[in-house]
């Protein structure tokens, strides 16, 4: 008589052994296999089931409250890049512009050495201007994307633009006020630091401090106000420190902010 192995009996216990009927018959006729099987079954009965601590219906919401401010940027799958036609269009346009400038430089009439230098300098300036515009367009386009990761790239990309125009600063302020993603808003605060001297940025950040409901963003804005020594934020900071509906940590930070600004 061929006996069943321990592995086969474990599978049988969990209902995963092939030819179950045969094993059943065998267990009735074979004492050693029946003993081995009883032993396995007793062990697994001892292990039994774990009493899982109860979690009520509010648990999902509690879990959300715990993670909502820690949501990481989403990974972008590789094929998204292929589908982002606008990036390719902009890159293509920039490449065409470079090529056209190069070809134009080769065939440009050369009346004299001095005027040739002036012409080259002028062409170079035009080219720089075009590239600057392209970069701004790309940044603005990224900031309007649906993916938070793309928007984050747009906001970070703004730091690479020398002397960005009002459009970029406006887009950063708009994103700071309305973006659904906390990380994007936080990146905006960092990006706006170099424009902290501008009136529209001062007004915009103070308004964002009053309107934001994300504690992390509120705290980052308070730190920003202290860092830029913006005494115009006094009212907004006082309102926050006195509002009982505001997160306790934010209220505490607002008090700290007022002290730092000696208001």
């Amino acid at each position, binding site marked *: 008589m061929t006996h069943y192995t321990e592995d086969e009996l474990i599978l049988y216990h969990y209902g995963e052994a092939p030819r179950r009927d045969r094993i059943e018959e065998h267990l009735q006729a074979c004492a050693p296999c029946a003993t081995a099987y009883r032993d*396995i079954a007793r*062990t697994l009965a001892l292990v039994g089931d774990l009493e*899982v601590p109860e979690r009520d219906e509010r648990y999902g919401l509690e*879990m959300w409250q715990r993670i909502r401010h820690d*949501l990481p940027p*989403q990974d972008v*799958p590789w094929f998204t890049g292929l589908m982002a036609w606008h990036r390719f269009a902009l890159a293509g346009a920039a490449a065409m512009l470079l090529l056209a400038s190069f070809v134009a430089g080769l065939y440009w009439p050369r009346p004299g050495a001095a005027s040739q230098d002036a012409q080259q300098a002028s062409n170079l300036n035009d080219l720089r201007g075009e590239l600057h515009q392209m970069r701004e367009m790309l940044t603005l386009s990224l900031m309007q994307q649906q993916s938070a990761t793309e928007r984050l790239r747009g906001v970070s990309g703004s730091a690479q633009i020398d002397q960005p125009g009002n459009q970029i600063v406006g887009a950063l302020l708009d994103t700071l006020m309305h973006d659904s*993603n906390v990380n994007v808003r936080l990146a905006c605060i960092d990006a706006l630091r170099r424009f902290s001297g501008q009136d529209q940025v001062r007004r915009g950040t103070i308004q964002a401090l009053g309107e934001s409901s994300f504690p992390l963003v509120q705290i980052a804005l308070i730190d920003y106000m202290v860092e830029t020594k913006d005494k115009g934020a006094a009212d907004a900071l006082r309102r926050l420190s006195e509002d009982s509906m505001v997160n306790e940590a934010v209220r505490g930070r607002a008090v700290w902010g007022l002290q730092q600004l000696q208001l």
Partner: protein
Amino acid sequence: MTAQEVPAILTRARQGDSDAFRLLVESHSRTAFRLAFRMTGNEQDAEDVVQESLLKAYRHLGRFETRADFGTWLYRIVANCAVDMIRSRQARRKHIWADPVEPSESTHASEQPGPERLAESSEVKRRVADALGGLSPLERAAFALRHYEGRSIEEICRTLNLGTSAAKQAVFRAVKKLRVELEELRTS
């Protein structure tokens, strides 16, 4: 959240809409906790696993196909996070000199005075918890999925990304180790 609404919610969540993701968190957290607890056997570890899994799911939502079932996808993430948690817990214990194995609150009865049977039951639970604690992370995970969750070997393979033979062997080794560890209890 109805079944008809799920695809639209998933699409929004994939686009970074945190409100849409909140709905998914609210509807799947309890199931995730149950699995995490059964795999780790510890309430605090299970909480950490759920939290870590949800953050991981959010980060990788772009890889998730909206036609697939989000619950199944999340289940796999939770199971694998639980394996990592057990692994790191065991590594921590190895590195702490003379660190006694702390019985988990959930698996150990309180020391309230009670009938003899209660005390016996408490002792059994402690011994079972210790025996489970002696399994390797993979054995523990495969065993929990098979024994507590009632998952087939094929489902265990898919969940833990294992071959059929590896999944079976992990369950077999787990049961064999438990038989040895619990022999005294079984015969008493």
